[in-house]
């Protein structure tokens, strides 16, 4: 059953990633240079939609709160984020979109994956050194959500309803998605890249 769900949800994810342009480095670069924000609007709307459905569903008892999986906060999250951002901008791929792009036939994405396997192996080799620095130790409570989500097992950073805050932030993401311009500099020439 779990393998069947992996196939169904995974395939849907890959299909949608390709259809929103996320497998195309030209589209990713347009977003990261802030020249063309259609993909940014897509991502913000997706986070908002997902958040509203999830927290709304949890409040109604339709979504199992135990399915939440919150990652720990530590200084290395920020440093790792900086590194990922650097490579993401240079290559135009992140781990998921790189694999999906390779499947669509992009040759450079195969090099991205090969580099990725090397980078992951390098981290496996250097993990004890990072661990020793203390940069992997939890900060601000570690695995925390911004509000307190009932029965999630995670602490809330602020003493407010995590479900309501989740829906409110979801709405903020949706509003920002609509408010952002498609092309801040008025450059739309590559808004629909040749495919």
């Amino acid at each position, binding site marked *: 059953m779990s393998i069947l769900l992996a196939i169904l949800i*995974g*395939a849907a994810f890959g*299909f949608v*990633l*390709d*259809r*929103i*342009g996320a497998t195309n480095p*030209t*589209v990713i670069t*347009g977003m*990261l240079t*802030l020249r063309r924000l*259609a993909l940014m609007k*897509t991502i913000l*709307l*997706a986070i908002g939609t*997902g*958040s509203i459905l*999830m927290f709304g*569903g949890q409040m109604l008892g339709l979504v199992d709160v135990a*399915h939440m*999986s919150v990652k*720990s906060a*530590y200084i*290395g*999250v920020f*440093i*790792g*984020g900086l*590194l*990922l*951002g*650097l490579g993401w*901008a240079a290559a135009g791929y*992140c*781990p998921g979109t*790189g694999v*999906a792009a390779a499947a*669509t*036939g*992009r*040759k*450079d994405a195969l090099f*991205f994956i090969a*580099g*990725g*396997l*090397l*980078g*992951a*192996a390098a*981290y*496996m*080799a250097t*993990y*004890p050194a990072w661990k020793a620095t203390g940069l992997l130790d939890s900060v601000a409570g570690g695995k925390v959500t911004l509000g307190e989500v009932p029965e999630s097992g995670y602490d809330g950073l602020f003493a407010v309803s*995590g479900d309501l805050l989740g829906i409110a932030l979801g709405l903020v*993401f949706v509003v920002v998605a609509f408010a952002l311009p498609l092309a801040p500099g008025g450059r739309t020439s590559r808004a629909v890249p040749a*495919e």
Partner: protein
Amino acid sequence: MTLDWKLGGVLLGAVFFAAVLLVKPIGVSTQFVILDGIVADALSPGFITQTDDGYTSTNAYMAKSDGKYAKSAANPLNYSFVFVLAMAAGALASALLKGGIGRAERRLPEVWRANHGDTPWARYAVAFVGGAVVLYGARLAGGCTSGHMMSGMMQTALSGYIFAAGAFLAAIPTARLMYKEG
């Protein structure tokens, strides 16, 4: 054909929601470690070993958290690994249904040609080094764009916001510096 952002955003959000509803939040970058583990264990048997109550590895990272990565590498037919393979299949299906992405794009993305000309090997070198930096960073952070940024911020995880701040802080100036055209 790229979907209108409104439809695309709702569809992508629905996929992230379906994942939490039915199983667990989406994540990808861990599977690079799992594939490395599978390869390492094939090249050097004994890299992963079975214990009385699970799996462990001679590598401290594979062995952490009671050997959960070691266990996944020893049993590749698990949800998260199959998810990534299925993701590739889904992207392939999408590309085939729209008639492929074309020979020029397969060789080099348009944005590279516009900025750096017809230099495929320079592009492949940047993609390789970029991939290494992305996955090193993702593993240090404990997740990537899918796991931390999308799934994390969707769940209002503090870590997701910290990760997104770091990622965009580095990505925006880098992209503007490397790709002045397009």
